[in-house]
């Protein structure tokens, strides 16, 4: 499997094995751009287990709702993130910027907050791990 040039293979291998262990898959079933729910069959509790294994493997703390939390915190005062569970255009822009590994067209108007996890790739978690390591967010 070819990884994008900015991806560190050693770090990715650890991320990949965390996914494989949490989901009961072989390592080669987990690819960088695999969709965590639709491709790998993860459920919500699996995400919890994946986060736990990543935290242990990298000695980091991943805040609950990490990506959504970061996105919400990036909004200016008065900006609105969602209306009746549907993401605003501004929220879609912020999420797209926070998740560059997800094709822009998937951040479609009408996307619900509850549907955001369906966009997650393995790459999303790789990026989260790297940003926490670079930010010094050790456990």
């Amino acid at each position, binding site marked *: 499997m070819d990884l994008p040039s900015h991806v560190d293979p050693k770090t990715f291998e650890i991320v990949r094995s965390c996914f494989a262990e949490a989901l*009961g898959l072989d390592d080669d079933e987990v690819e960088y751009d695999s969709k965590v729910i639709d491709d790998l069959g993860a459920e919500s509790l699996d995400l919890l287990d994946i986060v736990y294994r990543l935290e242990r493997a990298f000695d980091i703390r991943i805040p609950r709702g990490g990506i959504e939390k970061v996105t919400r915190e990036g909004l200016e005062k008065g900006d609105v993130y969602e209306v009746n569970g549907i993401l605003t255009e501004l929220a879609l822009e912020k999420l797209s910027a926070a998740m560059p590994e997800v094709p822009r067209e998937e951040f479609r108007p009408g996307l619900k907050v509850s549907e955001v996890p369906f966009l997650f790739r393995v790459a999303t978690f790789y990026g989260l791990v790297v940003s926490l390591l670079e930010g010094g967010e050790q456990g």
Partner: protein
Amino acid sequence: MSAVPDSRFVFLVHPFTGAVRRAAALRTARPRLGLGLRPQPTIDDARPICRLVLETPDRLVEGVVVTVPMLPEQLLDDQEAALAMMRAAVARAGGAVDVVGLGSLLAVVAGRGSALQQHLWQPVTTGAAATAWAAAENAKAAAKGLGVWPHGSMAVLGHRGTVGTAVVELLQADGATRLHVAARDGQARRARAQGLVPFDDEAAAAAGCLVVVGASTTGGILHPRALTRGAVLVDVAIPRTLSGPARRGTRVLAGEAVLPPRTYRQGRWGSVYHLLAGYGPAHLFACLVEPMIMAAEGRTQPFAQGRRVSSQALRDIRRLAPAWGFEPVLANHWRSVTPGRLRAHHHP
């Protein structure tokens, strides 16, 4: 009959609300926690709350229920702290311990029993096998009661999760031929290869099914209107499957309820625990069955740990649980519901 147990298990539980945590803390002589004077629990607060007994003419099994006084949000926020608390809880059971069972969210956080297992020599079991067994038996009973077993359409929501996967395996092994699931794209292809009938979403999967098994780990995934009139939702553990109250003409029954054998005794504080845990006086939740049977059998292999429940573990629990007198039962809160009543309810 000797008063010294032949085997002993520990069952770790946690409170779901602050009120239940305070009640447990008062029971365990932790007044500052119990009176709300100290909001954060420490490992010293993990204490036994009651004793359960399974007693046959030639075997005495004792169980100690130990509370891990962390609320759900705390368990989810800090899984390492949850693990530390679970280790402390096992140590505080007192005496020899042969088996460790995990209840509710404790069966899920910190690697679904696997991280705790690394610190213990006793086998750690999460209850997923017994929960799947009870749910499948209850779903089958409901389907028979409604006249749709085995060839009528039944839905299994959450079919890819630990319990859902096992429920599908058990129902198919017993002859169910038309199981509806929610699966898109690549997951739909996999579902067809397993002999399942995939639909784009949960509502579509449930449409027209008189029996729906709710085994998803995501709550509120099904609108009440998505249940067809006359349908029974066999809801398995938390979180609840419906996003609102069930509408008239449909029923939601607990899928993981089990009747204990007459050899089971719970004592006064055990009765209080039953009440606070939501069991009611006559039922157990299936997850408690696993450590009890393991201790009774002298079994050292967990029935369930990690994400997958093995086919062998499912065969074993199906054989052993009834042999020890445990019987799945459809439950409406504290009342048992017989399949015959289901038919009368829906076909007056």
